[in-house]
């Protein structure tokens, strides 16, 4: 992990990921239609829009679950027409899901340890004996995972199967699993959905801390406008699969198209 960097001036850097003219259709339904935007190194980028605007589809395109029919994705300077999930993961894109996608049968600790899979490479032979290099690797990563557990304050539940945890904690473990990948780009799909005010405040704090201390670039989808306006550096607004606005929270707030999309237009 990188050292903490507090200076706001240098926080935002070059373009880390750019999607250009991406279109995605399921049969006749156009989920995304010619959308372009970019995410800069170190920023918190919000993707908002009414239900069915194509926000989650956009994240799925970015980490390779969906393959767009048209468009280009440039990540870390490499342009391609589509991502593959494994490529995205090894390139440093981590993700949390709208409805928690944890490994329910495993403990919180194992879930976060699973997030380290890509960093672990001791072969099958040593794994069979669970000694020597295999154990050393396991311990080294356990130490890293414990740091995340401390950071997220979930020490007391590390041995609990995540299926038994309350929703708010599950969301936190899922964030932990994503952090275990030491991502460069963290995609958060509605991290605050279904939370009460206090949990939302906690989660906001974690997001800011991750961004600030680890310098992780964050793209988040969120419906709570208060959260979006407070957290994000730039906001992109989608509606019916098309981009209708892109800019700082203040610019977006004043944009007539955005107001119309959310409140409706008189015909």
């Amino acid at each position, binding site marked *: 992990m990188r050292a903490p960097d507090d200076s706001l001036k240098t926080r935002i850097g070059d373009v880390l990921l750019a999607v250009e003219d991406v279109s995605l259709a399921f049969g006749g339904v156009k989920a995304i239609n010619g959308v372009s935007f970019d995410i800069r190194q170190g920023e918190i980028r919000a993707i908002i829009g009414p239900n069915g605007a194509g926000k989650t589809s956009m994240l799925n395109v970015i*980490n390779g*679950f969906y393959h767009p029919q048209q468009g280009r994705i440039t990540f870390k300077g490499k342009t391609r027409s589509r991502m593959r*999930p*494994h490529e*995205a*993961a*090894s390139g440093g894109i*981590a*993700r949390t*899901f709208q409805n928690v*996608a*944890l*490994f*329910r*049968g*495993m403990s919180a600790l*194992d879930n976060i*340890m*699973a*997030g380290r*899979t*890509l960093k*672990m490479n*001791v072969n*099958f032979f040593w*794994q*069979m*004996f*669970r000694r020597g290099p*295999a*154990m050393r*690797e*396991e*311990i080294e990563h*356990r*130490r890293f995972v*414990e740091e995340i557990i401390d950071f997220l304050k979930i020490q007391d539940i590390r041995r609990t199967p995540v299926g038994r945890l309350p929703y708010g904690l599950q969301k936190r473990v899922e964030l932990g*699993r994503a952090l275990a*990948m030491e991502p460069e780009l963290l995609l958060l799909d509605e991290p605050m959905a279904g939370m009460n005010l206090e949990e939302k405040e906690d989660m906001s704090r974690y997001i800011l801390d991750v961004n600030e201390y680890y310098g992780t670039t964050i793209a988040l989808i969120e419906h709570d406008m208060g959260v979006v306006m407070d957290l994000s550096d730039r906001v992109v607004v989608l509606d019916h699969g098309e981009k209708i606005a892109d800019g700082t929270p203040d610019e977006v707030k004043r944009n007539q198209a955005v107001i119309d999309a959310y409140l409706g237009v008189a015909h």
Partner: protein
Amino acid sequence: MLYREAGQFKTNYVDDQAVFPIRQDRIGIAVILAVAFVGIPLFGSDFFISAVMVPLLVFSLAAIGLNILTGYTGLLSLGTGGFMGVGAFACYKLTTIFPDVNIIIWILVSGFFSCGIGILFGLPSLRIKGFYLAVATLSAQFFLDWAFVRIPWLVNNNTSGAIEVPSRYLFGMPITGPMAQPEVRYLVVLSIVALLTLIASNLVHGRIGRSWMAVRDMDLAAELIGIRLYRTKLLAFAVSSYYCGVAGALMVFLWYGSAEPAVFGIDQSFFILFMVIIGGLGSLVGSFFGAALIYGMPIILKAIVGLVGLQISPATVEHLTFMAVGGLIILFLIIEPAGLARLWQVGKQKLRVWPFPY
């Protein structure tokens, strides 16, 4: 009182990541191993050793194999019997072609043949899941069944069409064939099962086991954290069929003594699947429990009938035990759908806080 972990503090991650972090558990395992390796061969009767313990261990090993695939990785398979058969026939061919190589080596090597076949029939798992995959593995079962009966080369063109186990020796002692002592056969089976169980335990507690369970619980998220689904699933098929293959070879060479292809039929697959489900999906100790329950129950019931001294014909006893076992299985599944392993865990938890309820 005795089973209390109070005062056992872990000061490093090595201790904390141990398979048995609690001292009492380690003592328990040591006692069980001592009884199994020393007590039973010394004091067990020939019948108990060769008709109860050996089969129990063989079935446990097969159940561990299927548990790796179905319990840990979530891939339902009905081909267990076939994979066991591959191991048995491979071992027979190997030991008749190269009689000078020790049979124990061939038993362990024969698993690799089963492993290869397992990977081959595991390929559809990359595209299909759940019940559909079960049907695909069923095709493996039927194909292998057919091959065992129709290819006489597999049994060296015997007129009986069965595997006839030759005598093979270790340090001058017969360990297979009609001359082998039950104790010797038992110790060989026990050593192999203990070794393979240890390896399985190591695998499921490390990165590989976590990947398997991740694929089982949420394959999309697993893919996203960089787990390659096809590799993980095929590895599960490979390891699982290896275990089943070795179990099949042990079954024929150290238990049955001779075997017709029929013992590797679909019945066997279901038998092992029941053990895994009753014992507990995703639990190694559950595999032993499941094997003990499904295989041991009829033996115990028959013994009870014998003790009570009822005058019933053996055929009726057979039918009654079938009914009783079926009833007990249903009962167990109602009490604890997650299997005996969960019951065991709950029991240990209760013991930890005893005499308080929680």
